[in-house]
């Protein structure tokens, strides 16, 4: 176990990168990308069994359950009630009481309905769920979710699958400053530097799916994200230099040779 684990609800994860299982070219590529990402938690969706074609290979067979913890989500739910039903079904399938809680409020942006999300969080917490709600970058709703018993808060960096990167770093930093539970940036990351930027804001982890699954080379991008999350975390802990508008020399000013203009006799070596 790493010396700097991500701890949620008392459970420690080696990796601060959480990845998805959707939209990969194939289950095989997904499995390889999971390995490259170093993630030990992945999200899955809960959907109906296909009754007409049960031959389809099972997703689960391509997840290394020895190493990887499975986090069911409630993606696609537009009401607290459906999200709650989906969370309960996910618990029965996975025999784990963790849930990435989504209650969607808008089809175009897939932004959360925070009122319903708060209601669903309260109900599921009361039923013993470990609730990780996907929300937007609003410090107030994040605090309400925390007070409702959320085990972590997961503000979005940008719309799901948009790849726009962290749209409002100031809000994310404020959320982290105020939170007493882990903060995981969920959605919006497009490339490695976005993940590093998120971690440099001080958050505890980053969750992404599309940026890896739909990259030209998902396995290479998975490794890039692993390194970027580690880099951002290390840089945050190391403490960056301040920004200044002008320069500050890296080489000493003393001990330079006498400029030719000033040199005795001004003899030239050129």
């Amino acid at each position, binding site marked *: 176990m790493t010396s700097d684990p991500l701890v949620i609800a008392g459970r420690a994860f080696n990796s601060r990168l959480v990845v*998805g*299982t*959707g*939209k*990969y070219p194939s289950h095989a590529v*997904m499995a390889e990308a999971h390995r490259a990402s170093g993630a030990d938690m992945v*999200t*899955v*969706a*809960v*959907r*109906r*069994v296909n*009754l007409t074609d*049960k031959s389809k290979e*099972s*997703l*689960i067979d391509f997840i290394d359950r020895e190493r990887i913890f*499975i986090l*069911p*989500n409630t*993606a696609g739910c537009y009401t607290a009630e459906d999200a709650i*039903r989906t969370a*309960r*079904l*996910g*618990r*029965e*399938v*996975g025999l784990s009481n963790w849930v990435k809680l989504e209650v969607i409020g808008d089809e175009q942006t897939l932004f959360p309905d925070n009122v319903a999300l708060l209601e669903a969080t309260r109900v599921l917490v009361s039923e013993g769920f470990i609730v990780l709600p996907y929300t937007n970058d609003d410090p107030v709703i994040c605090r309400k979710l925390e007070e409702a018993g959320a085990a972590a808060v997961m503000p979005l960096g940008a719309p*799901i*699958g948009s790849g726009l990167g962290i749209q409002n770093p100031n809000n994310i930093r404020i959320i982290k400053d105020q939170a007493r539970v882990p903060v995981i940036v969920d*959605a919006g990351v497009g490339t490695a530097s976005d993940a590093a930027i998120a971690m440099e804001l001080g958050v505890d982890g980053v969750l*992404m*799916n*599309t940026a890896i*699954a739909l990259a030209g080379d998902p396995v290479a991008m998975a490794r890039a994200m692993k390194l970027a999350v580690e880099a951002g975390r290390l840089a945050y802990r190391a403490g960056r230099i301040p920004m200044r508008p002008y320069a500050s020399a890296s080489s000493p000013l003393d001990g330079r040779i006498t400029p030719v203009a000033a040199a005795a006799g001004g003899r030239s070596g050129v």
Partner: protein
Amino acid sequence: MTIRLNGEPFEIAGPVTISALLAELKIDSRIVAVEHNVVVVKRLQYDTTMIGEGDVIEIVRFVGGG
């Protein structure tokens, strides 16, 4: 009798238990979950939960998601 299974009408000689339904459908019960009239059914209750005419059944599994 006719039940509503995963959103579609479904004919089955019944009443039957959930276990019987899963067996009929050749579904491995260990990788799915079942909802009976909007209430999740614990696995231990598959043998004792009876499905009747017009009941609404959802059978789900994990698929790729984010």
